[in-house]
């Protein structure tokens, strides 16, 4: 099988073939995994690790929702509840979501998509994984020994005076930050120096563009988080207060420094999701993207303008009116780049050849949630509206629309889309659609009531609440259980497919993304021979009978 996308490959075999010598079985033994420098294996290790983190964070989320089932105490004390939502935030954001898509799919696919054998610094890549693992373990240590009750935002002076174990959590996040920096560094250098002949910047898959933009943010923003968390840890441990108001410190400065990272961090999470969607939509519609340049450059635009908007988290904090205006108007511009992407994705379907598959179902969910979540984000940046919504469930619902409705949907779409490539086997499409429907419905039921809760004035991080908020909270909890049920189904049928799934063959979707030109699962060297990239990715403008290897149906 020639990896070339264009030069007359042999006719596809009648039955799909499982690549007998692949990255999964090329070497055997635990050590070959733990010491691997193969980007694909590192991607799989991230998959296993971050999925466990997701399960843990999801467990915390369910406990929070159960606690909020009644206005008073339900199953835990206020202290436990405060720890729960802190750990839910820390686990989901730092341990799961920031490394998830770049760590799993960035690692697995980016080198393949640029036609390289590996990332630029394979050892650094492995180190980055172990830093992630170390950070996760440090944070886990903190959780077991009491957890923290500060919220994932670690606002001072609460975080510097709390008696809970906030220092290990801070250090864990700090170490994970380093992992994130090294991953970003690796991807940028890989994109710059290891693109195969034929892949110019304007022929790179859009996935690579988005991951590249993500990496830029990781490089520029994460160090600021590092130093900020260290300062808080110092203040907590030794009383060297930079933010301590008793010593003339300014707690608002902490918020500035924290959001200088944490706002761009939203894009660290969302841009990879957009990366996935750009690929999934082109394959599902059998059509090249509408406005390649617009989508590619809007990723860079998000990375760039995303840095100028952090102050919109602080409209009610005592920040100056002028700064609020500056940040407010700049926030409007960052919304534009997302709008460009959304319109171009929609327009991609025009004159396409669309097939409804599980990844496409998640794409549909993603589109609605991203538009609604993004537009409510713009609404939140409309300064005077934010005064009412700041720190209420409206904000909670907004960012869950982006994070769950956007990122998790894209993550699920990515898992379902690239599962055959990663493991060479197909999952049950029927169960895939069932769980997609469950998740999309459950998601709406969980978070739309939270918008209304925010409107009616329920602040976030409330352990107990006045009874007028009760019905909407019950609705939200009911939705959350539906959501959990959907995830459980996915875990089951994916696990089954690993061993008993139908063999996928190299290209079950008939996709013309570069990564589908190699075997499934890919051989350790990615391509058996150096491929020729003489067409842009996802070019479906003519029929290539030899290439259409679709076994998905």
């Amino acid at each position, binding site marked *: 099988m020639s990896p070339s996308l264009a030069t007359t490959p042999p006719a596809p075999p009648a039955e799909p073939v499982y690549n007998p010598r692949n990255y999964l079985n090329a070497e055997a033994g635990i050590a070959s995994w733990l010491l691997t420098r193969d980007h694909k294996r590192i991607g799989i290790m991230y998959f296993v690790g971050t999925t466990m983190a997701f399960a843990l964070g999801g467990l915390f989320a369910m406990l929070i929702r159960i606690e909020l089932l009644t206005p008073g105490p339900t199953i835990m004390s206020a202290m436990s509840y405060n720890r729960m939502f802190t750990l839910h935030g820390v686990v989901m954001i730092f341990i799961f979501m920031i490394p998830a898509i770049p760590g799993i799919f960035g690692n697995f696919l980016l080198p393949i998509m640029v036609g*390289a054998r590996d990332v630029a610094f394979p050892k650094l890549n492995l180190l980055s994984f172990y830093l992630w693992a170390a950070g996760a373990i440090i944070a886990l240590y903190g959780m077991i020994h009491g957890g923290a009750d500060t919220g994932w935002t670690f606002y001072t002076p609460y975080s510097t005076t709390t008696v809970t174990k906030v220092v290990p959590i801070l250090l864990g996040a700090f170490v994970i930050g380093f992992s994130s920096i090294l991953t970003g560094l690796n991807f940028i250098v890989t994109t710059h120096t290891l693109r195969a002949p034929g892949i110019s910047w304007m022929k790179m898959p859009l996935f690579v563009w988005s991951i590249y933009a993500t990496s830029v943010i990781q490089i520029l923003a994460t160090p600021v988080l590092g*130093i900020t968390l260290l300062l808080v840890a110092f203040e907590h441990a030794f009383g*060297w207060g930079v933010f301590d108001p008793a010593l003339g410190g300014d707690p608002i400065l902490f918020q500035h420094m924290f959001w200088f990272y944490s706002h761009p961090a939203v894009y660290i999470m969302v841009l990879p999701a957009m990366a996935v969607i750009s690929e999934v939509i082109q394959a599902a519609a059998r059509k090249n993207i509408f406005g390649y340049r617009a989508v590619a450059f809007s990723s860079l635009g998000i990375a760039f303008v995303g840095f100028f908007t952090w102050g919109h988290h602080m409209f009610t904090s005592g920040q100056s009116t002028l700064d609020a205006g500056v940040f407010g108007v700049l926030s409007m511009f960052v919304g534009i780049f997302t709008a460009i992407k959304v319109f171009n994705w929609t327009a991609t379907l025009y004159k396409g050849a669309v097939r409804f598959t599980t990844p496409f179902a998640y794409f549909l969910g993603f589109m609605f949630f991203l538009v609604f979540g993004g537009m409510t984000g713009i609404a939140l940046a409309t300064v005077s509206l934010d005064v009412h919504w700041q720190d209420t469930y409206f904000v909670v619902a907004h960012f869950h629309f982006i994070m769950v409705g956007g990122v998790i949907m894209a993550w699920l779409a990515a898992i379902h889309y690239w599962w055959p490539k990663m493991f060479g086997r197909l999952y049950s499409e029927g169960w895939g659609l069932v769980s997609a429907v469950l998740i999309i419905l459950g998601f709406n039921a969980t978070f739309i009531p939270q918008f209304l809760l925010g409107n009616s004035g329920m602040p976030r991080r409330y352990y107990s609440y006045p009874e007028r908020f009760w019905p909407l909270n019950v609705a939200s909890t009911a939705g959350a259980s539906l959501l959990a049920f959907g995830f459980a189904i996915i875990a089951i049928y994916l696990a089954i497919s690993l061993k008993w799934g139908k063999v996928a063959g190299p290209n079950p979707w008939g996709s013309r993304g570069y990564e589908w030109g190699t075997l499934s699962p890919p051989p350790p060297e990615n391509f058996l021979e150096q491929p020729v990239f003489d067409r842009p990715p996802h070019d479906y403008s003519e029929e290539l009978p030899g290439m259409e290897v679709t076994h998905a149906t």
Partner: protein
Amino acid sequence: MQPEAYVAHHFPNLRQQEHAARLGMWLFLATEILLFSGLFTGYSVYRFLYSEGFEQASRLLNTTLGTVNTLVLITSSLTVAMAHHFSHQGRGKTAAVLLFVTLLFAAAFLVIKGFEWTSDFHEGLLPGRFFTSTEVSATGGPMFFTLYFLMTGLHGIHVIVGMVVLCVLMIQCWIGKYDHGYATPVELGGMYWHLVDLVWIFLYPLLYLI
């Protein structure tokens, strides 16, 4: 041993690999700059708020030692740059000697810094609530020293890390690892050291002079 022997399996040629290494190093240095920028931001804000207190506090520092340290660090930067130059020409032994000189300068920097910290300690010029000096009348003295210790401390950690890196490079130069026209590690190590110098160039006027 030809330079081509250093090419890793996934790079097409040495030039591309060097390019990648250099770009990677610049990206890393960018993260270092942003790491320090957090402290510089703190400094800017509090200097803006407590300008008088900061000026009074800064006068309590030993400007002579600070100036000497600046000169020491600048000279060490020169010797590192020269070491890179010679290793690139294949003269590993000369490079090793120059790196050794750099390490001496670095050690001198730390020793001087140590003296300074000790005297600050005795005078009660300590961070935050440990600040006991009565010589700063305006608000902001404790904050200045918090930032002073955090900034010089973080810089000091970078000096120590740089020394370890340079020490390894010195040994590698001496045993002839870079005698064949491939000296990228020396260049990268040197860049790290220059960054340490770069940060100090800003710390010196901000902390000692104004």
